[in-house]
């Protein structure tokens, strides 16, 4: 039920490419509430997306 950071990072990445199921979204949200490292990771991933969009 509880995700590891490894699973959470993979699931978050998939969430950028497909709509996650309700269960996965819940598990991911729970993990991010308690995990600073993965929260920082998700902000970095969102930044990466913005950076690539602006690639000249």
């Amino acid at each position, binding site marked *: 039920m509880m995700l590891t*950071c490894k699973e959470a990072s993979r699931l978050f*990445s998939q969430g950028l490419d*497909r709509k996650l199921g309700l269960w996965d979204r819940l598990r991911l949200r729970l993990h991010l509430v308690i995990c600073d490292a993965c929260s*920082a990771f998700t*902000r970095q991933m969102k930044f990466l997306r913005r950076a690539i969009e602006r690639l000249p």
Partner: protein
Amino acid sequence: MKSFAARVEEQRPYLLRYASLQLRDSHAAEDAVQETLVAALAGEASFQGRANLRTWLTGILKHKIIDAIRRSSRESTVAADPLAEVSELDALFDSSGHWAEAPSAWPDPDGSLEQKQFFAVLEDCLARLPAKTAQAFMMREHMGYETDEICKELGVTATHCWVLLYRARMALRECLQTNWFRK
């Protein structure tokens, strides 16, 4: 005033860099750019009234790049093992699934987007990705394709596609961490 042909030709180095980043094959990149320039000259009339020549040419080039990817994925029958590709990511985590080196917030990321040098580092990081990983990633994030379209063009399963995208993001994060944010 410069002729249309001369203005198109001026964009060749930029287009070549753009195509090389995604195709990883200098011949294929040159072919795609050549086809683009030919199509542009033939289609001068359809450019009339558009503001930005480079944007218009890049739009044509994207189609040529997709054509080239489609051709090469039809030719190559060797399917990489997606699990083997994930295992190299294992080093980023310990055996219990925790980060080996926990990510911490990047300082002033938006400020980086204002710096030319940042994009040079980002391009360098993209160039280090394996070809198929880079293609999948650029199709997704730069060209805005949906995953199912990328799978189709690259001839891989949806699961493999997600693995490629995950792998690209993890590698780029590591690369930016090392070469930009840890300066």
